[in-house]
């Protein structure tokens, strides 16, 4: 537990001291989402209809782009060896790092998402469900992405490789995030979709740290 809190506290402190790195992700999210109206035209009906999809895809890309640094900095400066050699289970340490990553990327995205919804004139009825769906989806993305980040350590062009490895695994999260928001906008029950998102998160919670830890040990061999 000391190790978990220590890693979480240190990563949050590092993010806070390098605030420009963390804010880049949110800025990418906003700009990426704001590009669509330029490409598909400014028709209000169309924009309101594609808003859930645009928000979900932009969030997915922002989270994955920020994942490259998750283990890389520690790998390059030698701290990863110390993390692996800690008496605490490596899975717990990975979980702490993923949680810190979510706090510095997922959470700001959730805060910024209503801004995009406003930009697209998405009906306010969809907002609570959108926030709930993103709150369930972004931790899953951080968890699944951690596997890719651990696997690509030491590879050149690791960032692009992470996207190639992880994007296919994230499709289910994407589908149900958008489905939940669409259901809420159509006054249908969003709960089944949210439940599936919750189930995906619960499945990723034990599996991703375990797989990432194995990949990290391999990276140091």
């Amino acid at each position: 537990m000391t190790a978990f809190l220590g890693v979480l506290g240190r990563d949050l402190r590092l993010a806070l001291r390098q605030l420009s790195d963390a804010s880049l992700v949110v800025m990418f999210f906003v700009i990426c989402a704001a590009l669509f109206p330029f490409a598909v035209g400014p028709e209000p009906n169309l924009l309101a209809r594609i808003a859930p999809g645009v928000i979900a895809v932009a969030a997915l890309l922002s989270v994955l782009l920020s994942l490259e640094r998750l283990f890389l900095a520690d790998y390059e400066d030698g701290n990863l060896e110390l993390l692996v050699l800690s008496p605490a289970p490596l899975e717990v340490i990975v979980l702490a790092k993923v949680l810190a990553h979510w706090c510095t990327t997922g959470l700001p995205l959730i805060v910024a998402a209503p801004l995009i919804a406003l930009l697209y004139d998405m009906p306010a009825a969809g907002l609570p469900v959108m926030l709930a769906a993103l709150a369930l989806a972004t931790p899953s993305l951080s968890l699944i992405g951690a596997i890719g980040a651990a696997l690509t350590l030491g590879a050149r062009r690791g960032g692009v490789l992470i996207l190639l490895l992880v994007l296919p695994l994230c499709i289910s999260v994407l589908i149900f995030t958008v489905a939940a928001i669409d259901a809420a906008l159509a006054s249908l029950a969003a709960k089944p979709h949210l439940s599936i998102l919750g189930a995906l998160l619960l499945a990723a919670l034990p599996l991703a740290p375990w797989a990432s830890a194995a990949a990290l040990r391999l990276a140091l061999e």
Partner: protein
Amino acid sequence: MSLFEGRELICIRGERRVFAGLDFSLPAGGALLLTGPNGSGKSSLLRLMAGLLKPAAGALLWNGAPVGAEPEDHRARLHYLGHQDGVKPVLSAAENLVFWSGLRGATADGVADALARFDLGNLAAVAGRLLSAGQKRRLALARLLAAPAELWLLDEPGVGLDAASLDRLGGEIARHRKDGGRIVASTHGDLPIGQTETLALDDFAAGPAMESDW
């Protein structure tokens, strides 16, 4: 008397056999100095002892029990100091050290003392990016004192240290050994480590290239 020993260790990196048939034994209070030219496997042996690498063959025993059976117990009794100091540039010296101690389940109580013993007391609040190479090295060494561990695995610990700091390191090593701690260190230069057994790794260099399966 507990014994840390390796038997018939073989280390393969890539396709190359680095060393083979290597035995060592290290009693409490003992020190083992690894010497040999570049690439003779000093760092590999240290990583192998830490559990970062798996030996291709052979056994690594603590008190007669294989260390791989209880990896968490083994990690709890060792400190590994690699080539990199791992000092985070945006954290202060004390914050770096508190984090490393926390990783080993230790409280922050020993941090001030550890910094003082490597003459870093007045640099505690200085950010890592402002420390010189030697100061970073001393901060990494202070890790050994902030959270106690029985076995110190030191990969060229003297690199970048001035004469006064080397003396300090020598003093800490002597104290650690007097308390029953063990040390394995690799070095090219002189290390004030006291009475040691020297393991020249070029004696175990594998002769011809290993036979390829294909």
